[in-house]
């Protein structure tokens, strides 16, 4: 299940967070979700963000993906600074530059698989790139089920459609929020395989939040968060090495 990191990797940065902080509440009840986090997500790299619950891993992803606002610091997607954007511009940025895969509820039940895949382009009023669309659909292997409604697809198939949607608009970066959290291990492996292939074969940039060491092992790099700070980083992870690292959090959690 392990993969050697690609040696010859582009060093261009797809997204970057600098001194990023997110604080909820005020005074006594103040909670620091992110504490001056600085991190780069390089192009054509598959990054996993891990950490115990409450470590801020989802918050980090949401802030970088323009889904959530942050208290201080800066976030750049490509050369766009997110902090200065209004809701409307953020929405446009998400539509054109970012792909999303959520844990559940990725698809509109009223649209069929193909319509779901092209939804971001439909919203933008753009025609999808036919060749690219075929490539993506070929990648997820659902070309014979494109006319089906989500309710007629299995959970794994639905998530594969979600992956295709995330990739279809050729975004600069794809974010996954526990994309395999609701799937059995076989379907999960398939979805993760597609994500990795999209990085390898199509040069896509993917950032994924997960709590599953097996899922993290698909990534090129794992970032570990605890208490809103990046505490560790691992290149070329394996399920075992990630699990070991995670166990140290648990031990620390128990002793502290």
């Amino acid at each position, binding site marked *: 299940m392990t993969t050697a990191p690609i040696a010859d990797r582009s060093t261009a940065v797809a997204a970057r967070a600098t001194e990023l902080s997110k604080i909820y509440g005020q005074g006594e009840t103040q909670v620091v979700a992110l504490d001056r986090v600085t991190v780069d997500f390089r192009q054509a790299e598959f990054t996993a963000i891990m950490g115990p619950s409450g470590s801020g891993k989802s918050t980090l992803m949401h802030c970088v993906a323009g889904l959530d606002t942050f208290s201080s610091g800066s976030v750049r997607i490509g050369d766009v600074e997110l902090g200065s954007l209004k*809701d409307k511009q953020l*929405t446009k940025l998400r539509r*054109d530059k970012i792909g999303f895969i959520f844990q559940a*509820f990725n698809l509109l039940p009223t649209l069929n698989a193909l319509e779901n895949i092209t939804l971001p382009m439909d*919203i933008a009023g753009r025609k999808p790139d036919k060749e690219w669309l075929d490539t993506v659909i070929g990648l997820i292997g659902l070309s014979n089920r494109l006319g089906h409604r989500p309710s007629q697809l299995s959970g794994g198939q639905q998530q594969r459609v979600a992956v295709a949607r995330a990739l279809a608009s050729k975004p600069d970066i794809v974010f996954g929020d526990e994309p395999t959290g609701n799937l059995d291990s076989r379907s999960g492996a398939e979805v993760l395989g597609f994500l990795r292939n999209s990085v390898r074969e199509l040069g896509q940039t993917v950032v994924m939040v997960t709590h599953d060491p097996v899922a993290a092992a698909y990534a090129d790099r794992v970032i570990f968060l605890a208490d809103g700070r990046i505490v560790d980083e691992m290149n070329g992870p394996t399920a075992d090495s990630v699990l070991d690292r995670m166990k140290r959090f648990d031990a620390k959690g128990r002793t502290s």
Partner: protein
Amino acid sequence: MFRTALRNVLAHKARLLMTVLAVMLGVAFVSGTLVFTNTISSALQKSSAKGFDHVDVAVTPKWKDAEGDQVGKRQELTKATVDASARVPGAESAIGVVGGFAALADKDGKLVGDGWQTQGGNYWGAEDPRYPLVEGRAPTGPNEVLVDSGTVERAGYRVGEPVRMSVNGPLLEPVLVGVFTTDDGNVAAGGSLALFDTATAQKVFGKEGTFDEIDVRAKPGVSEAALKAQLDKALPKDVVETRTGGELAEEQAEIIASSMSGLQQSLLVFAGIALFVGTFIIANTFTMLVAQRTKELALLRAVGASRRQVTRSVLIEAFVVGTVAAVAGLLGGIGIGMGLRSLMGMLEATVPDGPLVITPGTVGTAFAVGILVTVLAAWLPGRRAAKIPPVAAMSAVHAKATTKSLVLRNTVGALFSAAGVAVVLWATSLDGPDGQAPMGLGAVLLIIGVFILTPLLSRPLIAAAAPVLRLFGVSGKLARLNSVRNPRRTAATASALMIGLTLITGMTVMAGSLQKSIDKMASEAIEADYVVSMATGNALSPDVEQKLKKLDGVTATSAMRNAPSRIDDRTEYLTGVDGTAFGKLTDFEMQDGSFAIEGTRVVVDDGTAKSHDWKAGSTFDVAYEDGRKQRLTVAGVYRGNDMFTGIMIDNRTLAPHQADPADMLVMVKTADGVSDAVKDRLEKALGSNPAIAVQDKKDISNEVAKVFTLVLNMVYGLLAMAVIVAVIGVINTLAMSVFERSQEIGMLRAVGLDRRGVKRMVRLESLVISLFGGVLGIGLGVFFGWAAGELLGTRMPTYELVLPWGRLAVFLLLAATVGVLAALWPARRAARLNMLQAIKAE
């Protein structure tokens, strides 16, 4: 279970708010109607009872002869009767009363008040106890008059100045010599009262030497009943009737109550419609609440609640909602009652003062209606809740409607609709009144059928809107898909709007067609240039015709008057006309014989001819109102219509038998035809009397139009409530949909749909649902309007269907506006949704 239900109500406050609002509006309408009519009715009764304070016993002439028939000489009360009454030992005093209609003009020459409210009477002697003077003195002689204080104030009269007035045509200009106050119920209700001295009053009202009534006052210590007994003994039994003041007040109260109950009932019909529409919203809300709570209810079942307990918990919830709505509605209704009263006070119609009347019946009705309607509407969703299997607690989200039940539903709906259409079509082939009952039945069947079928109809009709929605890009597409996603819910929401629009459209089509046909009838049958009548609708003095006849340029005139008679032991009204001129003034379609009215030759309409089995040449005996008999010959049979009908006889034949001839109207033809100058000349010749209306055909049709417009506007106003309730329904459905789909909306926002797009999506869905209801409603309304017209058409030869396209377009626009307005709040909510919370929410 009660606690669970109560918790649920509190937990879903916001969602139940709309339900409460819908029920509340209906209840407020009902209780407002009751409060208003009760208040007015009690105030009128109090003031009319006060009006009888000065009467202990009233003596009136017998109207009916020995056989109890109205035709026959009316008995008369004379000065001798008054004196005889006053001489009775128990009598303190006796007042002869004479009265009639008297139209007054204000300072600007405009009529004061409406016909039935403008009364005239006599001031008895030097000091009439009925009418205490506040200014001036008693009238003496033909040129002096008193007017009630309210009217004096409104019309701006001053003592010492002449008052322009008219009783039956000729203009009178007596001088105002005094102002009085009165408890007269009619005056309290906003009418006017003008008083002459007794001799003048008798002359003006055409009752020389006679009285309408004698009011007798009892000596102290003599009871009403005792006085009545004495009077009964003293006065001839076959001439007079006596009633005590108590009886009179009671009679009056009954009349007021019955006239009020008519108003009350028609208002309650509209309240019922609003409530009916409300039931859709309640049923919809509870269905959605049950669907949203599937897991919760299943959990209750899993931990041991019985089916009945689950149903009951839903019903208790409905009960609580209904009670809250009833209380709020009752309060609202009291407010409406108060508001209506002060609104009427602000308009011309003064309403007698009195306390606001809130009877236990009103309170009871409000609660019964609010609670019953809510619980009944929640009953089906409650039963559905009970059917949720306990295992649903573990499985995924909302229970979906099975297609099987829609198949059954569509079959039932199609049967109902087909039966409804068939019965309505069959009814249109029937003759007038015979078709009414079947048509009503058919209409009900069809409406029920369409209700049941709306989920099925929603798909093709909404699909038809797809090309338009495509213009709005992905928002339009999603709106269309969302609106057919839950056909039952869309159907129930649209149906609520449909009812109101069906009624509005049906009424409009019918009224427009009727108006057109009456217009046509008038213009086809009337050849006269002008029709002269009292603006108040009272009778004209024959002097008016005489005056018009003598005018230069007038080529023909005919008065029309009504006279009761007996033919074949039945009371028939004869229409007296000028036999020689009438033919030139009208144009009738003759079915038999010729149009000849002269001496004993008369013409009759087809209906009357049929009922008596007459044709041209038939003869019959008639007994006139003075009791004398004559044999008449049918010269011809004409086709009757709503304006001209009955037996037409020459006035010269009729006049000798009439004690008090009075004309309904006078038709006039002039050499110069219709022009402002001619009209002016006619009006001048009649003394520029505001009480007399000189109308050409156009004026008449304008007047008809005015009546129809007034009635239509009232109906629109009353049906507006049903539309408002329907708007609440649309808001409710959208709000629930937004709530249910928050995850989807969050996802759409995340993948790049901006706030405007989300708003547009919700708005378009609302528009689609509303227009769907609008199209159905307008379609049904046109069908019913057409069908009702076919029925009317059998009695109205000039009837033709008029489709008011402009209005129909306005109604469709109204439906669209409803959609846009209803979406305002839900769309904002959807756009403001917090993406992250929405996506994560379970």
